[in-house]
């Protein structure tokens, strides 16, 4: 990867602003326009919020972001944590996706993951017993 950059931040909600500043700069430097920068910023913020809320709900640790541009010019973002194993299949789809927008029953849990999948071109979750949760996201090169 070209111009690889890493940020390590404590897995706490207070870190989100710092993470946002970091990823905003990375996406700008990778050549994304303001809409693209916003989409990357949002996907990373939602991903890190999930890590803080779920993976680090009971234990504490750091979030490690590694970002860079690959040979094709696409932005690759790897987010690692050493918290509780995250299973994306356990997250229910928000009702908005199945077209049920009835306020009385409206439950928008799972919206963060829904946004991540909508905003990024590739999203891969994996878990390794030694290094923990890895989320890799790719945003295609702006044209």
């Amino acid at each position: 990867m070209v111009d690889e950059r890493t940020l390590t931040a404590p897995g706490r909600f207070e870190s989100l602003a710092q993470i946002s500043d970091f990823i905003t700069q990375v996406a700008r430097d990778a050549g994304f326009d303001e809409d693209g920068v916003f989409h990357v910023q949002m996907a990373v913020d939602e991903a890190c919020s999930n890590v803080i809320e779920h993976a680090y709900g009971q234990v504490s640790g750091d979030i490690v972001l590694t970002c860079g541009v690959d040979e094709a010019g696409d932005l690759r973002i790897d987010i690692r944590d050493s918290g509780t194993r995250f299973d994306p299949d356990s997250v229910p789809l928000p009702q908005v996706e199945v077209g049920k927008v009835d306020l009385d029953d409206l439950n928008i849990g799972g919206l963060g993951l829904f946004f991540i999948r909508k905003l990024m071109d590739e999203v891969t979750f994996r878990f390794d017993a030694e290094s923990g949760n890895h989320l890799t996201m790719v945003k295609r090169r702006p044209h």
Partner: protein
Amino acid sequence: MDISTRELKRVNVVTVGGRVDSAAAPDLEKTFQGLIDGHRHQIVVELADVEYMSSAGLRALVSALKAAKKGGGDLLIARPSTRVREVIELAGLTSVFAMHDDLVEAVGSF
């Protein structure tokens, strides 16, 4: 996140600015809860200066909307920033929130 509230005769206006992420959403929830507890169910949320709103911010708005309606009132959005509008559209919630481009119009609609 910056947050301020104004109490008008029949309506409370909550003005929010800056970043509404998971760190800020609990404060927004608290503000709405305070209004609901005080039986102020007619709420206008002015979002012109919101630079960023995550799903946590959106969840705070949806729960306040539900609570306001349950109490016989409503929660309207006034002057949503481009980013707020985009997030609401992305979530497929445009039919859930009444949005007004004018604050006076939003307040007057109650």
